[in-house]
């Protein structure tokens, strides 16, 4: 669908590209979420992050999120770009941009997208510390 752009990339993300995709003549408000790699998790210093995805299903689930937004919010376009592979501190893991005629809807839709992505999209994140590593959220 030409109003949806789903990308799962091995190279660096650029939020300007997501925003450029969702920009359109009918929308005055674009809200973007950019997820970056934090240096500290629960006081431990992270060296890098490794993202692994089950590609076909990850793309399918991201597309479902975008389709849900277009169906349930007054949104015009949605871009969801996710990174896989190794990321350094400060690297961009995800960019989600939503454009709507009115900004309030764009905030709600973008928040729905990132909240749902973290629940449903088969992507896994390993935090690598100086003294070990952990699969994020794996254990209760």
């Amino acid at each position: 669908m030409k109003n949806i752009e789903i990308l799962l990339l091995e190279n660096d993300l650029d939020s300007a590209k997501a925003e450029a995709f969702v920009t359109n003549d009918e929308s005055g408000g674009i809200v973007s979420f950019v997820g970056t790699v934090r240096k500290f998790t629960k006081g431990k210093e992270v060296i890098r992050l490794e993202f692994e995805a089950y590609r076909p299903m990850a793309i399918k689930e991201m597309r479902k999120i975008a389709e849900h937004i277009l169906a349930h919010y007054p949104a015009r376009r949605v871009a969801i770009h996710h990174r896989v592979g190794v990321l350094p501190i400060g690297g961009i893991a995800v960019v989600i941009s939503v454009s709507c005629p009115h900004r309030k809807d764009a905030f709600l839709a973008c928040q729905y997208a990132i909240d749902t992505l973290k629940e449903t999209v088969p992507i896994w994140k390993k935090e690598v510390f100086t003294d070990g590593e952990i699969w994020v959220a794996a254990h209760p």
Partner: protein
Amino acid sequence: MTIKIIAFGIAKEILNQREMEVEIHEGATVADVRKQLEADYPAFQKLASLSLAVGEEYREDDFTITENQEVIIIPPVAGG
């Protein structure tokens, strides 16, 4: 019957391999596969969740697996 298991994230580390074949009774459901995995690899019991996907869709416990089907093990996701 034989089914193919494909594992990601911590599930791949628990199995120590990306793909494996598993023998299970005819008419086994998602719940049966999960039970067998948890019995063979107790580390799975410690995960916050363990979902299974077939045909690129999450499947409920009562979904029936058929011979040679690919079952994807999906431990807790953590995108974003």
